[in-house]
C-alpha cells in the first residue's frame, strides 16, 4: 500500500532521523522525501510503501503519532488514494 506521511511543526534537530528510524524498524520503505520551512514551520512529506511493513496501518499510525508527540510535531499517515482522488482526474 502506498501512503503519504506528513510532519508539520516547529523545526528541531533529529526529526527526520527519528521518523525514518521508526519507519525502518517497521519495515516501511521511503520512496521520496520533500521538506521545507513554510511560514516558520517545518513541513515534511514522505511517500512511503507499506508493502513490507510488519505492522498494520492502525499500529503504524499510532506509533507515528506517539513519535510526533515526543518530538512536538504533528505526524499523520494517510493512504495515497485520498490525495490521488482529490488532485488527479
Amino acid at each position: 500500500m502506498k501512503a503519504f506521511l506528513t510532519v508539520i511543526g516547529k523545526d528541531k534537530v533529529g526529526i527526520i532521523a527519528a521518523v525514518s528510524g521508526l519507519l525502518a524498524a517497521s519495515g516501511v520503505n521511503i520512496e521520496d522525501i520533500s521538506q521545507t520551512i513554510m511560514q516558520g514551520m517545518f513541513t515534511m512529506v514522505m511517500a512511503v510503501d507499506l508493502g513490507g511493513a510488519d505492522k498494520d496501518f492502525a499500529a503504524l499510525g499510532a506509533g507515528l503519532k506517539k513519535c510526533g508527540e515526543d518530538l512536538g510535531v504533528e505526524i499523520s499517515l494517510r493512504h495515497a488514494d485520498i490525495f490521488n482522488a482529490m488532485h488527479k482526474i
Partner: protein
Amino acid sequence: MMNNLGRREILETIGMIGEHHLDIRTVTMGISLTDCITDSAAITAEKVYDKVTSSAKNLVAVAGEISAIYGIPIVNKRVSVTPIGIVGASSGGFLEIARALDRAAADIGIDFIGGYTALVQKGATAAEERFMDTIPEALSTTAKVCSSLNVASTRAGINMDAVSRAGRLIKEAAYLTRDRDGIAAAKFVVFANAVEDNPFMAGAFHGTGEADKVINVGVSGPGVVKTALEAIPDGDLSEVGETIKRTAFKITRVGQLVAKEAARRLNASFGIVDLSLAPTPAVGDSVADILEEIGLGSVGAPGTTAALMMLNDAVKKGGIMASQHVGGLSGAFIPVSEDAGMIRAAASGALTIEKLEAMTAVCSVGLDMIAVPGDTPAETISAVIADEAAIGVANGKTTAVRLIPVYGKTVGDVAEFGGLLGTAPVMRINTLSPLKLISRGGRVAAPIHANKN
C-alpha cells in the same frame, strides 16, 4: 513530484481536513424492509430489527476503518429504511416498528435511523392515515428515529389535506417534548419532491426503487470553500464561481472514494454521493460565512439569494464530474440552528423567515431547523409548508420544512437542541391568519409544466 503529486497538493489536503473542517458528514446505509412485511405487528417488528442489525452490524466499524486509513473524519453513521407507512400497513404495528428501529439503531451504534415516513403527495391510504397519527408519539418516545412526509410533487401537485395534517403533527410532536424545547419536531421533516436516496436526516428514507442494501454518502466542507475564497478577495464573480467549482470537485472526490470503499467493505451497492454543503454549529463550518465572504455584510442582506444561487450552482457543477453517481439532495443546506453564521444573523434580526423562504427557491433544501414561538397556530405552520411545497412543485426541486414550535418560548428566546442539531433563536413568524386556505383541504393541481409526456 511524488507519484505525480506535488507537496503543495498533499499539504492542501492535510489543511482542508485538519484546519478547515473537511469531513464526510454521513455514511448512510439504505436498507429495504419490504421483505419484513407481515400481518403481525410483533413479527414484523422482530424482522425489521433483525434485518437492520444484520445488514448494518459492521457500518460503524467499517466507517472507523476507512476514517483511519484516509485520515478523514466520518461524522455520522446512519441507516435509512423503506417508508414505514408501507412496511407497517398490513400489520398496523407502526409504533412497534418504531421501537424496533430505535433499539436496532442503539444496538449497532449508529447516530440516526430514518424512514418513519409516508409518501402521500397525492393521497393517503387508510393505513397511512393511521400511520401519520402515530408520528408524534413515535418521535417523542424514541431517541434515534427520524420521520418524514412527502406531501407534494411536481407530477402530483400538493396534497393540502396532508399539509394541514402535517401542521398539527408538528405542533403535537413539539408539545409532547415541550420539556426539551420540542426536540421531536426537529426529527420530522415535511417534503415536496422528496428523493429516495437522501443520506441526510431527518429526511432520509430508502425508496422502493432502490436495491436491497445501498451506501449513500453525504460530504461537507463549507469551511474549505470559504478558505478557498479568502485567497481571492478581489476576484470577480466568475473567479468566485470557478474557485467554488474546483473546491467542490475535490470535496466530492473524497466522498466518492469513501462511498465506493464503504460499499465494497459492507457488501452493499454504491448508491450516490450527495453534494450538499452541510454546515455544523462549529466556528468555520458555516454556509452563511461563505455568503458573507462572497460579499454580504450579513447573510439576509439584499443579494443573499443571488450569492446563494451562485454558490449552489457552482457546487453542483464542480461536484458532478467528481462522482460516478450524484444524487440525494445535492445543494447548499441552510439550517438555521446548525450554522453559526445563520444563528448570528437570525438572532440579530438580519435574517427573517421570509428571506429564508426566498433562499430556498435557489438551494437545497428548505426552511430547516427554524424555531418559532410555541403559540404559533397549526394552520400557520401548514401554510408555511404549503408555500414551500409551492416553490418545490413549481420549480421541479426538493423543498422541505422543519419548523420547531418551542412551547413556552417566544421571539428573542433561544432553543437548545444539542449536538449537531445546535441552538436556534426563536424567530418571528407572520401572525396573519391563513386558516381558511388550510381549512379548504383538497389538492392543488400539478402545474402545467409537469405535463411533459
